[in-house]
């Protein structure tokens, strides 16, 4: 069962990852441009909005997406995690306020607007835009972390760790963060997708990746006008993005699946070596009956 889930998640994830990783090796030289949004004509998957071969763009377009999205998400979390945990763990209200209120200011400005404004002012490159998108995500992620960790941070274990003079990092990451892991994984997985499209939208608005860049997210965005003439130009990269985010999240799910104690099926009741007793009047525990640890 577990193995099947792993396999399923890995297969879904492998397609976009392999394409992203190895695609550029097989992309080859650009052929001549065709007319925009045509199907056939030597282009297996048709042409895109500027008449390039869609398949070649797909091969080339994975790396930046995967890199930008992963980097921005990771970066956002690298900052948000300590911030959020700090907010959850401190009892100094002023510190909590000091950490969260300024971030709330960023939060009150719609992220797209913020990216748009800041990017128009500082004109960052591709790395800069990842940084910017990460920055925009920090307040949100920090709040998510804080919310997810709030309960765990108030547990007596944490008091006990403090009593032991345990270091902040170990308390925060090792104990509190770990307790909130599932929620954080869900949040991060979802955030990955959000980040991805924010990067794409930013590029359309003229910042970060070139607007005709080989980049799955940018492709989805830019080829939308031709969605009905040449669906592949949107569908292929979109499907790959779906696979990427779905695979990542399913992998998280599979990895975290075994963490809550749940009885293995068939073990909830004594697997009677003798025939089931006639007087077993207790109803079979429902499928959700969970054992206490």
């Amino acid at each position: 069962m577990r193995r099947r889930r792993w396999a399923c998640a890995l297969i879904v994830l492998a397609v976009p990852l392999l394409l992203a990783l190895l695609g550029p090796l097989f992309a080859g030289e650009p052929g001549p441009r065709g007319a925009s949004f045509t199907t056939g004509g030597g282009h297996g998957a048709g042409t895109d909005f500027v008449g390039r071969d869609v398949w070649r763009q797909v091969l080339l377009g994975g790396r930046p997406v995967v890199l930008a999205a992963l980097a921005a998400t990771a970066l956002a979390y690298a900052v948000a995690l300590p911030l959020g945990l700090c907010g959850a763990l401190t009892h100094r209200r002023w510190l909590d306020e000091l950490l969260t209120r300024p971030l709330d200011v960023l939060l009150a400005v719609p992220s797209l607007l913020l990216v748009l404004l800041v990017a128009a002012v500082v004109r960052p490159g591709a790395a800069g835009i990842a940084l910017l998108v990460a920055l925009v995500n920090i307040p949100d992620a920090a709040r998510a972390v804080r919310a997810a960790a709030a309960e765990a941070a108030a547990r007596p274990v944490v008091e006990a760790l403090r009593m032991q003079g345990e270091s902040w990092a170990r308390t925060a990451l090792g104990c509190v963060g770990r307790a909130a892991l599932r929620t954080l994984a869900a949040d991060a997985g979802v955030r990955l997708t959000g980040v991805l499209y924010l990067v794409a939208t930013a590029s359309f608005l003229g910042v970060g990746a070139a607007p005709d860049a080989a980049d799955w997210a940018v492709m989805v965005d830019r080829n939308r006008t031709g969605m009905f003439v040449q669906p592949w130009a949107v569908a292929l990269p979109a499907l790959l993005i779906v696979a990427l985010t779905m695979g990542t999240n399913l992998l998280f799910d599979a990895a975290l699946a075994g963490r809550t104690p749940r009885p293995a099926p068939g073990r909830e009741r004594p697997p009677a070596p003798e025939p089931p007793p006639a007087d077993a009047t207790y109803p079979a525990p429902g499928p959700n009956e969970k054992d206490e640890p």
Partner: protein
Amino acid sequence: MTGLRPWLLRRLLLGAGQTVAVVLLVFALTEALPGDAAVALAGDQPDPARIAALRETMHLDRPAAERLVDWAAGLAHGDLGSSLVSGRPVSSYLADGFGPTLLLATLTLLLLVPLAGGLGVLAARHEGRLVDRLISAVTLGVYAVPEFALGVLLVTVVALRLEWLPPTAVGHGDDLTAHPAVLVLPVLVLLSRPVCSLARLVRAGMIDALAAPHIAHARRYGIPGARLRYAHALPNALAPAAQQLARTVDWLLCGVIVVEALFVIPGLGTVLMNAVAERDVPVLQGLAVVFAVTGVVLNLAADTVIYRCTPRAGVAA
């Protein structure tokens, strides 16, 4: 935390400060943007003399700080100033945009909360089994599809092929409530992604919550399944979801630009995008006030939920 009320009061006070900060931030960023309202208005006729004249008529030749102070002084009397370009009061812009946005946001929320909660709980109940994997796969799949693609798809299939619903709200912008049919597709599109993200979070929290010994304990005493899940387990999983919900409301209010554009609903998102394009600073500042206030209120609400759901937080050493 000593009592909810003083805390709320303090936060509201801080909120006022935050609003000021947001306004300053937006003002600074718009000022730093290349070009100003005059340049934007001049468009592809950037005749320098005309731009200078436009600047003068818009009072853009005065220092930024002075304009800000003027605007702030007006704000103190409840006057949000007036648009640089059209000269109409900013409050009328906001009032015009707020109605449709609020309507959409409310409808979406009304559906979003039960739907996302239900899906998340359902998935968590069946963690690892077919139902869960189905829900997870579908929500993740839908989440990875951008709004415009989903919107165009829905319009094509539901409105143009099947002709069940009108494709856009064009022409009904003033009175959406009179034509509820035009709202169906926008609300569907608006729902699509938040439902997914929220359901994921609820699911994650619920798996842990359902596995807690106190839930097994309650189940033992014959608490009905639904009540057990929603009244007993869910509060333990609620904090992150409430946080996410606050963000969603914020996102809904601050203009779901794509949906508004796709379905021609003249809401705040449209006002926002136009104001940015036109560098209409007073309108932007008015919007910033609206966003900041909703942001403060929503964050406060989310924090209150966290506060309620983690009652120990205040007393733990």
